[in-house]
C-alpha cells in the first residue's frame, strides 16, 4: 500500500486517484460541526484562525475521553456531509485534505477540483482500530467544545481511501 506524509505535496495530491488505498503519516487536525461554524465566522469577520489552514488536513472526528495510559480513545470518522456547507470556503483558504465518512455535495466536489484538494474516507465505525494509528493528541483550540475541540494529532500509517480526487472523480459516482 502506498504511504504518504504530511504536508501533502501538490504533485502527490494531483497523482491520487479514486479508490486508491493509502497509509498517512504526519500531522492532522480534528474538526467537526461547531469548529466549522466557528472557523467560518472567524474567516468572514477577518479574524485570526487558531490553526494554520494552509496545506492542512482536517479529520472529521470527535474522540471519546482518553483512557489512562493511552494516547487517545476511540476515534473514528463522523459523517462528512454535515460539514459540506462550510467546506468550499475552507478549501479556498488553503485546506488541502479532509478525512471522514460518506458522500459529499456537488459544491464540495467542485471545490476540491478547483483548489486541487482531496477527500479521503477511512474505516467508519472502527474507532478502536483507528486509535492504534494515532501516536499523539493535543488540544490546540476551542477546548470549551469538549470532544469537538480542535486536536492536533500525529498519526502513523493511518488508513485512507481516496474518495474524491483533485480531478473530480468520486468513489460514490
Amino acid at each position, binding site marked *: 500500500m502506498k504511504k504518504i506524509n504530511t504536508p501533502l505535496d501538490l504533485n502527490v495530491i494531483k497523482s491520487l486517484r479514486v479508490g486508491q*488505498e493509502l497509509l498517512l503519516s504526519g500531522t492532522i487536525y480534528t474538526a467537526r460541526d*461547531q469548529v466549522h461554524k466557528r472557523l467560518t465566522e472567524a474567516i468572514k469577520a477577518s479574524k485570526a484562525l487558531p490553526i494554520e489552514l494552509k496545506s492542512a488536513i482536517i479529520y472529521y*472526528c*470527535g*474522540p*471519546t*475521553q*482518553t*483512557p*489512562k495510559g*493511552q494516547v487517545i*480513545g*476511540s*476515534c*473514528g470518522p*463522523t*459523517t*462528512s*456531509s454535515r460539514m459540506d456547507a462550510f467546506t468550499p470556503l475552507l478549501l479556498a483558504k488553503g485546506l488541502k485534505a479532509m478525512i471522514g*465518512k*460518506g*458522500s459529499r455535495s456537488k459544491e464540495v466536489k467542485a471545490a476540491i477540483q478547483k483548489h486541487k484538494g482531496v477527500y479521503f*474516507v477511512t*474505516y*467508519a*465505525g*472502527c*474507532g*478502536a*482500530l483507528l*486509535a*492504534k494509528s494515532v501516536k499523539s493528541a493535543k488540544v490546540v483550540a476551542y477546548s*470549551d*467544545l*469538549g*470532544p*469537538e475541540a480542535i486536536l492536533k494529532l500525529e498519526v502513523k500509517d493511518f*488508513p485512507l*481511501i481516496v474518495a474524491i480526487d483533485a480531478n473530480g472523480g468520486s*468513489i*460514490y459516482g
Partner: protein
Amino acid sequence: MKKIEAVKITKAVTELVKQASFFLRSDVLSALRKSYAVEKSKWARTMLKAILDNAASARKEKLAICQDTGLPVMFIQIGQDIVVHGNLKVAINKGVEQGYKKYYLRNSIISDPLNRVKPRFSPCIMHTDIVKGNKIKITFLPKGFGCENKSQLKMFQPTASIGEIKEFIIKAVKDAGPDACPPYVIGVGIGGTADYAGIMAKKALLRKISPNNSKLEKDLLRQINKTGIGPMGLGGINTVLAVHIQMYPTHIAGLPVSVNISCHALRSASVTL
C-alpha cells in the same frame, strides 16, 4: 411487595454501559461474520474485515467500539409488584454518568439544543413500561447519531398499499446511503401514533438478529440488499444485516410508519433485577 434499593440500579446501569460499549452484541457479530463469508467484492471484504477487527480491538483494549458512544436510551420494564427505595430516574442517570466517566466514553449530550455548549454524559432518554411481576428489566441502547440523523417518519393514508410502505422504507435506506455506516440494521414501527411508531422503530433494533423473520421483513431485506450500497457504501451485497418490524393497533384515519436506522455498531445490553 419486593423492594429494591436505588443504589443497586445505579450499579447495574454502570455495568450495562460497559457491556454495550466495549462488547459488540453476539448476534450482530455473527451477522457481520456471515456477511464477510458471502461477500465477494474487494471493498466489501476490506470493510467487513476492518469492522470485525475493530470489534476485537474494542473488546481487548477496553476501548469504545465507536467514538460516538451515543445518546443513552433506556427501556425500562417495571414490574407492578416492586417498590424502588429512592428515585428510579435519578438512579438510572447516575449509573449512566458513572459508567460513561469510568469507561472513558464520550460526553456527547448538549443540555440546550439551541445553545450548544458544555457537552455532558446525561440525561438519558427513558421509555418506561409497567409489566406483571416483581422485577425490573433495564435495557441500554447507546444510539449513535450518524445513523439516528437518518430516521424518517411518514404518516400514510389509511388506504396506502404495502407497496407504498415498502418503497418508503427502501427509500429511507437509500437516503442514508453510504453516510451512516452500513451494513445497517433497520428498525420499523408501523401503527400507533407518530411518536409511538418512532419508539417501536427504535425498540425493533433490540430484537436479536435471527433467521426468524416475517415475510415482509424478508422481502425488505432482499430488496434493500439489491441496492448494492454495501459495507461503508463502497458496494456489496450486504447493505443491511436485518430488517425488524414492530406493529401496534392504530386509528381508522391513519397509518404511521417510522424507520430507525442503526449503523453496524448496533450496541445494547440488558439486565433484570
